[in-house]
């Protein structure tokens, strides 16, 4: 579990594909390199999408998990 401070949280719960990723791509633009972005989503496709997006864009996915049907992703701005 990371103890670093999260710089911004994107609540994408209830949004369907591709909005969680689109909102993430928007939010990460506003962060400085090294800052952490937390995203909450309920779209079941988001697990594969976030892994793929992190790999493709070079913003590492440092944490992800699921609790009570809510997926949580923590990304580090490259």
């Amino acid at each position, binding site marked *: 579990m990371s103890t670093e401070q999260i710089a911004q949280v994107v609540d994408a719960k209830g949004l369907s594909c*591709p909005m969680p990723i689109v909102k993430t791509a*928007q939010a990460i633009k506003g962060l400085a390199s090294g800052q952490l972005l937390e995203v909450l989503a309920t779209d079941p496709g988001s697990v594969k999408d976030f892994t793929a997006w992190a790999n493709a*864009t070079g913003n590492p996915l440092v944490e992800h998990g699921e609790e009570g049907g809510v997926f949580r992703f923590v990304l580090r701005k490259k």
Partner: protein
Amino acid sequence: MDDEPLNLVLFSGTEDRLQAAAVMASGAAALGRRVNIFLQYWALDAFRKERISASLGLAPEAGERGATLIAEAAKAGQQPWHATLRVAKELGEMDIQACSLSMDVLKIEEEDLDPLVDGVEGVTAFFLNAGDGHILFI
């Protein structure tokens, strides 16, 4: 990462097909890919200021059950296709062009079109901008 743009030729003007196209376009934009969209016929008609927020119907295969499910998704908060496209356009490099032939056939003037549309071009310009990127016809 693929540097070639994603190129969409939109032909159909039904809400479900436009939504599918908007999803493809915004997914590519979120990955930082350039997106070129070429609007023909009924898709172009759907981008008229007067039509863009109107109910545009569904593809015939949707049937009654499909229509019910789409209505439920909208009620549950799924945003309309044009809203998805607007968000995607802010996110990345997206160029939306009207097909000049379709403009003629449908008697549409540039000022009739929603500001999402960047301009009017012919098919040759579309192919030049498409480069070696994929072209999808929807």
